[in-house]
């Protein structure tokens, strides 16, 4: 794949997954899942700020912060939903600190389909991650509209 504009963190994540066989990709997804940070207190106390991603099978909520043109994605999902947590964690790490323009222009909407997880978790399940990315981008557009 040649998309030279793809931000480095997302390139690294993709390479990490593609270097593994399918079974180990699941293990790596589990590691991401375990790394999903707790919500910062300012959101944990304000569930109303979080948006539910209804396309995901498990209750997952996300909130995108834009500070000085830098993007930070916060998400929460229950422990019993490790796959969804893993998806959210990949995006939280991959998008963190990118500029608004980078996320909107350089991260393709089908990035989730390109990291070798389709075979590992099934095409249907990967749709949840695509929806997460789509909603994150929409929130960014909303937050920066008219800015």
């Amino acid at each position, binding site marked *: 794949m040649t998309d030279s504009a793809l931000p480095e963190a997302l390139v690294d994540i993709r390479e990490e997954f593609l270097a593994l066989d399918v079974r180990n990709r*699941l*293990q790596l*997804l*589990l590691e991401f*899942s375990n790394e999903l940070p707790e919500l910062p207190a300012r959101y944990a106390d304000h569930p109303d700020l979080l948006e*539910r991603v*209804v*396309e*995901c*099978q*498990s*209750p997952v909520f996300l909130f995108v912060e834009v500070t000085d043109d830098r993007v930070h994605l916060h998400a929460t999902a229950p*422990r*019993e*939903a*490790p*796959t*969804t947590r*893993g998806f959210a964690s990949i995006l939280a790490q991959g998008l963190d600190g990118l500029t608004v323009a980078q996320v909107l222009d350089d991260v393709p909407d089908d990035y989730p389909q390109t990291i070798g997880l389709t075979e*590992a*978790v*099934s095409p*249907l*399940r990967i*749709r*949840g991650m695509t*929806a997460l990315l789509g909603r994150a981008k929409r929130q960014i557009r909303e937050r920066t509209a008219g800015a």
Partner: protein
Amino acid sequence: MAVEHDTSARFGEYAHPERLVSTEWLQQHLGTPGLVVVESDEDVLLYETGHIAGAVKIDWHLDLNDPVQRDYVDGEGFAALMSRSGITRDSTVVIYGDKNNWWAAYALWVFSLFGHEDVRLLDGGRATWEAEGRDYTTEAPAVEATDYPVVERDDSVIRAYKDDVLAHLGKPLIDVRSPEEFSGQRTTAPAYPDEGALRAGHIPSAQNVPWGKAAADDGTFRPLAELDAIYRDGAGLSDGDQVVAYCRIGERSSHTWFVLTHLMGFEDVRNYDGSWTEWGSAVRVPIVQGTEPGEVPAR
């Protein structure tokens, strides 16, 4: 050789109590020769976070479905799956999972398509196992590949195709989806991904009994009297009925298939796995919207 049955008194009232085991029974029988424990979940990673010791994982997307056609694996695919799971044709298989055994029941139904004789559910699944503080491990089980025969899948008895359902119209149908899907307000379960159906509503005359009603709050199956109240008094089923159950892709309805067949003793129950994602997109099949079952159109 089959492992002894769980003779717990609370299962005795069901039509086929040998299809259930309790958590206590499973704990006591872990490691018994001839017993293979299978975990089958909605979340493909849940097993990796911790599972019952020795349990193998079978995933419905990756292991039970054909990767190309919308169908289940064939005899060779199933034999290969059984072999790599350490299951022989005469193994006693106990399946458990998340979400009231939703996917576990689905796996059990697919095992039944291949006529695997001794396949049981762990009553209450993961939820009960956890609530009782029983252990999980992340240690991968040592599985020895087996020689499982290639058995042709038999779709004629417990599986219904769309044409079978059309021919069945006029006999009992149980729609196990949510009330919103039944009435046609939406085509997907609340909070579930869109698996694609062009039209919303239900098959004419179907009774709406959401699948989860068969489970008590703790995830175990309801006692027979409560099941009778739901399916006989509520949905109008009676002895000798031929029944077809459906949902959206056939997974929730395999849970209801289990309840009607193995707990209540209905002898002719089929699961329409094409379900709403097929019916709701098929050309010129009758559909009813609203909360009432509606009439079967004259033919």
